[in-house]
């Protein structure tokens, strides 16, 4: 392990975020229990826990999966992304309560190991109607566990952003498994218009949001052709906001061109922390600041200010008659490049 573990830094925003998560969990469980007690008086405590936590975890999963595309569509949602990992870990804890109670309820105190029983009791793997749906939930929960266990920046640093991101993209596999777990389990057992509608609406919401954000991004990500000098036209100077950036795709990589203090600099758009979009960030205290978690880089050399050590690739920028051009050749991460100077008229 090349990186040391440091405890989570609890700042005010994180505390507020976590308090809202706790309040939401408490509110949901309280309302579920009160409603079930009032409308379904025969329900047992175990069934109550299994259903309340199962439905809450599924709802939280929908919120978690919505945050990414919502931020792509509207930057005002970015604060929800800042502490999304705490929301993910909280969802795992709720899902784990559901899973542990289900395994204890349906598989413990029998003649085989409970975990073996999950996979071996119902063996109708060749039938959709009779499929052992609990196995799907178990696999989904295993993915959530891996994600929760590696959610700390310690693992991000040790596994590397690419591997870490790939691992955490498994959330979509887990989502598919959980949807099938619910469809082949409770929905099949207790067909209810409300349940099917809620589940269908949730699935359409998640897939629709991702498609919408994807199309929007794809339209903006069209690669531009090179001019005779081998440069790419980024656009008019006036299109770049002060202390902000525009992005351009070159050689399949996104590059952010920043305007600040009468200068223009270009760096890779991909933050070293979690691949956040630096081009959607802002220059704060002279540093490019990632909109996701506030990681910072100096615009002229792509280096994080000391004591931080992250580095991104830099590019040459050219300004000609109010037109901004970019040389698509990246320089090694952390290479100082002279900014293009904006002449004041």
């Amino acid at each position: 392990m090349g990186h040391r573990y440091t405890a989570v830094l609890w700042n005010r925003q994180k505390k507020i975020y976590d308090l809202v998560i706790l309040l939401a969990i408490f509110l949901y469980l309280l309302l579920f229990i009160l409603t079930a007690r009032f409308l379904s008086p025969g329900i047992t405590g175990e069934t109550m826990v299994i259903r309340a936590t199962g439905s809450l975890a599924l709802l939280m999963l929908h919120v978690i999966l919505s945050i990414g595309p919502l931020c792509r569509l509207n930057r005002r949602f970015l604060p929800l992304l800042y502490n999304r990992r705490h929301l993910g870990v909280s969802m795992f804890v709720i899902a784990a309560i559901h899973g542990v109670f289900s395994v204890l309820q349906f598989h413990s105190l029998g003649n085989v190991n409970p975990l073996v029983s999950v996979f071996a009791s119902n063996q109708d793997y060749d039938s959709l109607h009779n499929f052992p749906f609990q196995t799907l939930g178990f696999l989904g929960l295993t993915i959530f566990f891996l994600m929760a266990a590696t959610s700390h920046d310690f693992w991000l640093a040790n596994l590397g952003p690419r591997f870490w991101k790939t691992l955490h993209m498994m959330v979509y596999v887990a989502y598919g498994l959980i949807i099938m777990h619910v469809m082949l389990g409770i929905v099949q057992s207790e067909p209810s218009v409300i349940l099917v509608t809620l589940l269908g609406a949730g699935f359409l919401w998640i897939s629709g949001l991702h498609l919408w954000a994807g199309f929007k991004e794809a339209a903006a990500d069209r690669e531009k052709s090179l001019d005779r000098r081998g440069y790419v036209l980024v656009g008019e100077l006036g299109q770049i906001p002060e202390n902000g950036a525009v992005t351009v795709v070159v050689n399949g990589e996104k590059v952010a061109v920043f305007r600040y203090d009468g200068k223009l600099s270009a760096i890779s758009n991909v933050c070293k922390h979690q691949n956040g979009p630096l081009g959607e960030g802002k220059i704060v205290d002279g540093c490019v600041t990632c909109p996701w978690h506030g990681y910072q880089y100096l615009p002229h050399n792509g280096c994080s200010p000391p004591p931080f050590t992250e580095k991104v690739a830099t590019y040459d920028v050219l300004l000609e008659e109010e037109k901004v051009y970019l040389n698509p050749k990246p320089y090694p991460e952390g290479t100082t490049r002279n900014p293009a100077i904006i002449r004041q008229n």
Partner: protein
Amino acid sequence: MRKNEFYIGYLPKAPGTLARWLRGIIAVLLALLSLVAVFVAGNQQPFAETYFEYGKSTQLKGVVSLTPVPRLIVKTGVDLKGQAVTKSILLVNFGKSGAAEIFHNVEKTSGRPLTALEFTLQGSLIYGEGKVVFELTDQHASVLDYVPLNQPYYPVKMNDLGEQSIYGEIIDPKCYFGVMKPGFGKVHRSCAIRCISGGISPVMVTKNENGDKQFILLTADNSATSSHKISKLAGKPLTINGQLTQMDDWLVLHYNEQELAKIQHQKFVAGPLLPHQGITICN
């Protein structure tokens, strides 16, 4: 969010207009979450009026028989002819296991047939839909006492109802009659498989056209092997043929190995797990 506003999570405060907007979003999310909680909790199928007296200890006296399944035969009164009226209470062990082993031990220790003894048992009652199951919560220690019977064992009326073909769902009686809700269907299937393969006697639940339920104990020549095989069929609608008998307040269907092989090759159709066809027998 104003154009120059930019959120940085580690700074103490979020920009003003963004913070106000976020409060609105959080309020909408909490309202949505509350609605889902109420809708999901309020739209569950009704739960059966069955009960498990968990943590409450009860003592029962009666004669234990392991045929066709472990049960405590208790005398509930006499009929007009002065003959004993009895009720069979199914006996189950703690957890997902049957009670037979406990009484095999007693039989060995006492040197007498079980039906020549009167037992005092302690455990927890499970009951509903007219049936009673008794969990021997403390396992072997649940047998508090047994004494030789002064009077002969009160005979149980057996009434042969002939060959019958019955459509229904195999359940484990411990969960169905109160330990779990719901104690049937696909969600409960794995648990029923564990319970039946652990030695709890399988029961078939069937409904007639009026929606009246009948509970039928399933027995076979070699109960131990057949229980394991038939456990795999729990929680599915199926048809089973066998010899039907009325035994005090229970129906018993005795099937043979060939029948079991036929059931295992049945095509299980999608549909409601509780059937709309079945038998109607007047008690």
